[in-house]
Structures are given as structure tokens and as C-alpha cells.
């Protein structure tokens, strides 16, 4: 039946065409997002000057001040805080799962830790407000809504990212390395510390950087616990406003230059995130090649 054969060939071609259009849609959406964020965000940089926005310390958009430096600093500080809280703990969990836990323990613990990622960020924020913030206020003083509260909440939130990527990295270290180390009389901890961690370094680093990306991009939980004050913090007990909080707090009612200022904030955030993701992907790829 040559007729049906031709129909089949045409159909195959159509289907391939359709899927290729689908495949390029992701790229198209990415360009669309960049185009609109940049299109709305760049004009204010041109009007006020990059210096005014990036290094300015005063944010009063209705009075013509668009400085976001305190927020850039706060975003970085809160992210570093999150890494201090979640990084070592996450790496320890990954090492425990890979090197110490038996098969059955791993089968229970690993999915449990991954489930932490499924809890909505607003729930973390809420529990932070109810438990962490008052605890900080009573024990350490200050308003409680603070850089510290934000770092603790974010540290827990990035735990699953750090555990799962560090676990993959540690796991992919060949057993021959460990056996070589044991053969030389090293203990388990010496092997982990001298052989396993150094070999898995780039993957672990990638996990930390992806965790950073998640922390710096998180919004709702941070708004709820960090206090949102517009100044450069002088202690970890000071309230802070991050780049993401700035956008989410004011977008609903901002108009004119004020709204453009929020998009400029978005541009800065987007650039930071892209750099972090690029570095992280580089680390992961290097590990896969090896």
C-alpha cells in the first residue's frame, strides 16, 4: 500500500516538526522572561546611572532614591548565613548516608530529607515567625525579625538541595580509592577526610552553590521572618530586606518609576542567579566527565 506509506511519512514529518517547536519553546520562554525583565529594568539604570542604583544606600522610590546596595548586601549576608546553618549539616548528612548508613537506614532517611524540599516555603516562614523569631528575641535580644532568623529558616530550606547533590558527589567516588586508603592503615574518618571529601570536592561545591542560588532567590519565607528594614545591618540581630523581599513587598502597588525600580532590582537578582547557576553547572559537569 504505497498510499498509506506516504501518509505515514508525512505524518512522521509533522510530528517531528511539532516536537521541535515544543523543544524550542523553553528557550523562547527564557528569552521572553529576560527580554521583559531587562526591558522594564534597564531604563532606570540609564536614567539614574548604574552607580546610583547599585551603590546607593537610600531606597525611597517616590522621592527619586533607588539605591539597592543595602539589599544586595543583605541578600548575600542572609545567603552566607544560610550556608553556615545548612551547609555543614547537609554535608554531614550526605556523608552519613553514603559512608555510614546501612541500606535500610538510607532507604528511610534519604526520602525523608528530600521531603523537606516539598514543604511550601510559606510554611517555613510561618513556623519561623511563631517559633524562631520569639526565641531569638528572648534569648539574644533585638526585634527577633532578623538576619539570623532568615538565615536559620533558609538554612533548613536549602538542606535537601545540599544533601542530595553532595550525596551524589560523595557516592560517585570510586570504592577503589577508599580501599586503597584502608589498605594503608587509615581509619574510616581519615579516609573520609583525606580521600573521599577531596575527591568529591567539585560536586560538593556545586551543591553549596545551588543551595546559595535557592537561598538568594527565596522570597516569602524571608519576608515573613527577616524584618524587611531598609538599612545595611550592623549585627546578625538587625532586621534586613533582601532583593527578593523588596520586589514582593512593593510590586502590588508600585507605579511609574517605582515599578521600574523593582524591575531594576529584578535585573540585579537575575544576574546574580545566572552567575551562581553557571558556576554550579560547571562543577556538576566536571564531576560527570570525571
Amino acid at each position, binding site marked *: 500500500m504505497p498510499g498509506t506509506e506516504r501518509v505515514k511519512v508525512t505524518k512522521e514529518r509533522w510530528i517531528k516538526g511539532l516536537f521541535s517547536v515544543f523543544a524550542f519553546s523553553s528557550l523562547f520562554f527564557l528569552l521572553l522572561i529576560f527580554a521583559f525583565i531587562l526591558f522594564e529594568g534597564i531604563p532606570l539604570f540609564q536614567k539614574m546611572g548604574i552607580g546610583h542604583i547599585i551603590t546607593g544606600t537610600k531606597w525611597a522610590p517616590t522621592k527619586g532614591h533607588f539605591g539597592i546596595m543595602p539589599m544586595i548586601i543583605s541578600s548575600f549576608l542572609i545567603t552566607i548565613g544560610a550556608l553556615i546553618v545548612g551547609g555543614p549539616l547537609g554535608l554531614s548528612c550526605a556523608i552519613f548516608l553514603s559512608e555510614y548508613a546501612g541500606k535500610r537506614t538510607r532507604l528511610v532517611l534519604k526520602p525523608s530529607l528530600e521531603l523537606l524540599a516539598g514543604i*511550601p516555603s510559606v*510554611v517555613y*516562614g510561618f513556623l519561623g515567625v511563631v517559633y524562631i523569631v520569639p526565641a531569638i528575641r528572648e534569648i539574644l535580644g533585638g526585634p527577633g525579625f532578623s538576619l539570623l532568623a532568615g538565615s536559620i529558616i533558609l538554612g533548613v530550606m536549602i538542606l535537601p538541595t545540599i544533601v542530595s547533590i553532595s550525596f551524589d558527589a560523595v557516592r560517585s567516588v570510586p570504592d577503589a580509592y577508599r580501599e586503597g586508603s584502608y589498605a594503608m592503615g587509615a581509619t574510616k574518618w581519615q579516609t573520609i577526610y583525606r580521600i573521599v571529601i577531596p575527591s568529591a570536592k567539585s560536586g560538593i561545591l556545586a551543591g553549596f552553590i545551588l543551595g546559595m542560588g535557592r537561598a538568594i532567590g527565596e522570597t516569602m519565607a524571608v519576608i515573613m521572618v527577616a524584618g524587611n528594614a531598609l538599612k545595611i545591618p550592623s549585627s546578625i540581630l538587625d532586621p534586613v530586606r533582601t532583593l527578593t523581599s523588596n520586589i514582593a513587598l512593593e510590586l502590588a502597588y508600585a507605579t511609574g518609576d517605582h515599578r521600574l525600580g523593582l524591575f531594576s532590582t529584578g535585573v540585579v537578582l537575575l544576574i546574580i542567579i545566572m552567575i551562581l547557576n553557571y558556576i554550579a553547572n560547571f562543577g556538576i559537569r566536571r564531576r560527570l566527565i570525571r
Partner: protein
Amino acid sequence: MILEPRKIDKIVKSGFYIQAIFAVGLLFAIVAIVVIRGVPHISVRFIFFEPIDMGREGGIFPTIVSTAILAIFSLLLATPLGVGTAIFLTEYTKRPPIIRVIRFGVESLAGIPSIIYGLFGFIFFVVKLKMGWSALAGILTMTIMILPTIIRTTEEAILAVPKNLRLVSYSLGATKWETIKKVVLPTASPGILTGIMLSLGRTVGETAAVIFTMGSSLRMPHSLSESGRTMAVHFYILAREGISLEKAYATALVLILSTLLINVSAYYIMHGIVKRRMR
């Protein structure tokens, strides 16, 4: 004091145990707190009645409906798009530059934080395309946001389909599409379902991208052009504006149970595949 290496080894080991137990304990503590403080305020009325006085009294029914609308329509759009992309990447193209450029797009989309999606959805769908705060604007924004998850899980599932199955199909005279439709996709379906479930969990729990596109109207949505308030957004507003602590806990309970249920089933579907593959 110099400790013997064996002693250090024991101390370190217990240190790792304690940390792992602490981390898992956190998860259980979070769930336990929400369950214990939420259960007393939850009832059939709470689930199926409309809120009264901004949520101080009454239930959360419209927010459940809004969440369902957002999730169902986003998945209806994102699933064919994502599965199609994964099929193209794994079955149709062999040219590395094309794969690399598409994968770059997918990876970048996956890394963009949800507030940027909110910002984009707001300026593009709500303002420029004049959709206003509406379910449609929320659906389109979430579709783009969950696309990378569906693409990646589907891709992995398709790559795990044994090559022999395809060869047998071709040798029976099947075309490429027939092979994909009747052999590859059914074999990969648990993996695809996992991606769908993970995306569903993400949509249900999302706030930042939804609040600026779908808005936060508490009324029951009647069409896609109306604004609606999802459960997560409602919970955020209840908690942040201090409207009602009891209702906030009750909403948190519904929210956390549904996302956990979704994620656990995603895990078990995935686990089923791993088991089958090893057999």
C-alpha cells in the same frame, strides 16, 4: 592531649549519627507541629465552606478550588509541552549543538527564582497582554515555571527505556512515532508521572509567582479571567496579616498534608521504576 585515631573515629561517627537524626528530626518536628496545632481547628465545614470576614471565620473552599484550577490547567499545558521536548531531545535530534542550546534553556529556566516568574508574569500576562490578575495569567506563569521539572524527569525516564525494546518495534515495521507512542512512552510513563506529581506539589505550594499573576481575590472563581486566591496565598495572607492564628494553622495543615501526599506518591512511583529496572 592527643587522641588515638580509633577513638577519634568513634567520636566522629557518633557526630554524624547525631547530625543525621537532627536533620530528619526537623522534618518530623515541622509536620508534627502543624498537625498538632492544626487538627483542633479543622472540620468538614472548614474544607467545604466559604470564608467569612477575610478568613477569620468559615472555611477555605474557594482557595481549594482556585488551587485545583491553577494546578490542573498548568499541568494540562506543561505536560504535552514538556514531554514533547523530552521526546525531541532523546529520540529525534542527535545534533549536540541543538541539544546543548535547548538544555541550556531548560537548566536556566529551572534556576530562575519564583519571584522573577512573578515579576515576568505580572508585566507580560497581567499588564502587557491585559489579562489583569486572573487565573489565566497564573496558569500561564506556572506552566513555564514547572516545564523544566517535567522535561528533566521525562528525559531521564525515556533514557532508561532499553534500546532493545525500540529495535524490536522497528523490526516489526513500526515507524518512529508508532514506536514512541506504543513502546517508549508507556514504558517511561511512571517517570513521566513522577515529573507531573513533583510539578503538582510545586504548584500547590507556590506563593510568590502566583500572588502577582493570579491575584488574591477570595471569591469563588467562575472563569479563567477572574482572579483567585490559592491555598498557599491564603495561608500567607492569614499568617502575615495576623488575621487568625487558628485558621492559619488549619490551612497550613491542609497545605502541608496535600504537598506531602503528592511528593510521597511521586517518590513511590519513581521507586517502583528503580526496582523494575534492577530486576
